[in-house]
């Protein structure tokens, strides 16, 4: 069994060299070639000075080169750090600096963005352009390396770089409550815990045709890529624009004969609402996995009717644990309105809920905060000991040994069958369209505006996208700026999916007895 993520590729390349590993529209690459090319890129990275443990940015739209990049970073002993291709510039710069990246793997499509970055201030040593075959002259204060420098290399055997399974494999940035994203650190062993579990639980086979819909900075992609590589299956990369045009995506799933689909519910709802998905059939689709947000029951029922032969699973887990509980949806009563449970722990980890008195929740109907224990738990937040200590805590449940457990901040309850149900959050993190959003990050962005005296972001429950965001602002000087100016200001700092649906001005905000903004009072109205 592979002890390092990239060995999943090496082993499958030995067993299935001529099988297609990746497909992107009409482009394909076999396991053998994926192995060879990722070796060449890894060798190039090592030549450019990459050392074991270096964080290397992968800033590329979903494509074959983006996957080659991930594997190459791992092979070079680096920690791959995927960067959302659509993230605003300040956020991008923050992540690059916070992770201390010296090397970036990107594409010519991102050159305009790179030009806007003050690259002379960010100490990047080299930027490899994974789609540049000619050596583009971009006049940037950083060394640009064209792809032919990689592909023209002779076949390489990489030296053993001494990586071990507790080394970090990747860092995934998630929304941070204080205004800046936090980097979740995941080791090879932590990642393989999930991959081995999911491969076995869902019986992923070489014949499987697995979609890769989730972006690379989202942990759903770990299953798409690595469970497939482990099984020797073929990964069908979904072009990013297909998520926008429902008919394209529907036809993609059907025509490519996708057998395994994994995504947030929102995209599936989008296909049903705007794509007339019920006009189509998907005979090859055997497994539908969904995670990241509550699946509105009426749409889940509709989907199960559209694909009656498939198995449906609700997977739950924050980025800090990947998937820690799951639930197989067998049958939905026509009258059922309650969302499906998050289920029970995966066999590889343990979960438990603690109530407000720090007592274990064992009875049906009692509420508590969910904690996760086991090798699926991340190593913490990159260079943030304070937040790490706050959320990865001592195992008070078993104080005999110092294993860290993760507090999810999710409030759950148990049902009569021992399944957990998600009730809500302890704090101000919300989900909207499957995206994890810290309301504090939006508020921090608002406070950057010099005209804002006070601001609060609140979630308004929504049937389709789980939550919409409303922002209330108290200006220092009433009338000194408009809603449009605030939108413009925000759009420069936060990703699209965090943009509030409604902006309102207030003369004052209600306060609690301790002087903090009274969110609960605002949420009630």
């Amino acid at each position, binding site marked *: 069994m592979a002890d390092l993520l990239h060995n999943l590729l090496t082993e499958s390349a030995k067993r299935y060299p001529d099988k297609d590993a990746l497909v992107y529209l009409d482009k394909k690459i076999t396991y053998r070639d994926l192995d060879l090319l990722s070796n060449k890129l890894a060798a190039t990275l090592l030549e450019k000075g990459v050392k074991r443990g270096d964080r290397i940015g992968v800033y590329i739209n979903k494509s074959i080169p983006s996957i080659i990049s991930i594997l190459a970073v791992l092979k070079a002993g680096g920690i791959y750090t995927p960067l959302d291709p659509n993230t605003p510039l300040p956020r991008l710069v923050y992540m690059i600096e916070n992770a201390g990246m010296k090397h970036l793997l990107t594409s010519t499509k991102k050159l305009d963005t790179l030009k806007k970055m003050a690259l002379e201030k960010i100490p990047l040593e080299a930027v490899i352009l994974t789609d540049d075959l000619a050596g583009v002259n971009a006049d940037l204060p950083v060394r640009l390396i064209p792809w032919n420098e990689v592909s023209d290399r002779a076949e390489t055997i990489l030296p053993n770089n001494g990586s071990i399974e507790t080394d970090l494999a990747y860092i995934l940035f998630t929304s941070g409550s204080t205004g800046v994203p936090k980097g979740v650190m995941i080791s090879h062993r932590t990642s393989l815990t999930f991959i081995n579990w999911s491969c076995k639980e869902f019986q992923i086979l070489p014949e499987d045709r697995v979609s890769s819909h989730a972006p690379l900075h989202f942990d759903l992609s770990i299953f798409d890529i690595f469970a497939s590589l482990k099984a020797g299956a073929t990964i069908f990369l979904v072009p990013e624009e297909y998520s*926008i*045009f429902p*008919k*394209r995506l529907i036809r993609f799933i059907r025509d490519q004969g996708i057998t395994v689909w994994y995504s947030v519910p929102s995209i599936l709802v989008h296909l049903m609402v*705007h794509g007339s998905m019920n006009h189509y059939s998907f005979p090859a689709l055997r497994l539908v996995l969904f995670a990241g947000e509550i699946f509105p029951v009426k749409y889940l029922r509709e989907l199960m009717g559209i694909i009656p032969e498939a198995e449906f699973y609700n997977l739950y887990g924050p980025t800090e644990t990947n998937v820690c509980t799951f639930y197989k949806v067998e049958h939905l009563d026509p009258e059922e309105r309650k969302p499906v449970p998050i289920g029970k722990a995966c066999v590889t980890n343990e979960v438990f809920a603690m109530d407000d008195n720090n007592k274990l929740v064992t009875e049906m109907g009692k509420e508590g905060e969910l904690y996760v224990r086991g090798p699926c738990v991340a190593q913490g937040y990159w260079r943030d000991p304070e937040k790490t200590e706050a959320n990865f805590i001592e195992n008070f449940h078993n104080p005999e040994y110092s294993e860290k457990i993760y507090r999810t901040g999710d409030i759950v309850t148990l049902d009569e069958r021992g399944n957990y149900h998600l009730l809500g959050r302890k704090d101000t993190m919300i989900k909207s369209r499957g995206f994890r959003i810290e309301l504090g990050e939006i508020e921090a962005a608002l406070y950057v505006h010099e005209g804002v005296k006070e601001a609060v972001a609140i979630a308004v429950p929504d049937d389709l996208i789980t939550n919409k965001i409303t922002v209330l602002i108290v200006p220092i000087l009433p009338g000194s700026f408009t809603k449009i100016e605030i*939108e*413009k200001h*925000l759009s420069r700092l936060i990703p699209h999916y965090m943009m509030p649906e409604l902006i309102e001005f207030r003369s004052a905000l209600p306060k609690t007895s301790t002087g903090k903004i009274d969110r609960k009072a605002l949420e009630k109205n």
Partner: protein
Amino acid sequence: MDVKAIVKQYIVMEIMHQPEESVLDDEASLIEGGIIDSMSLFELIIFLEEKFGITINEEEVDIENFQTVQALVNFINKKMHLS
């Protein structure tokens, strides 16, 4: 009716949240550039149908018609002349 100006105005204000129209080039890719996403696409469609009195059917919601401002304007003009 200046279709192009109306379309650009909507996109820069409601989708890009940038009050200056000059940020949007007629040939700039709305999709690759990450300007339009699945939420904003359907809000845009509702706007176009109401503003120009056209009905956009599901088959027409495809990459070609929404690729750039110019492509969108051409599409709208075609729909308006047919009705």
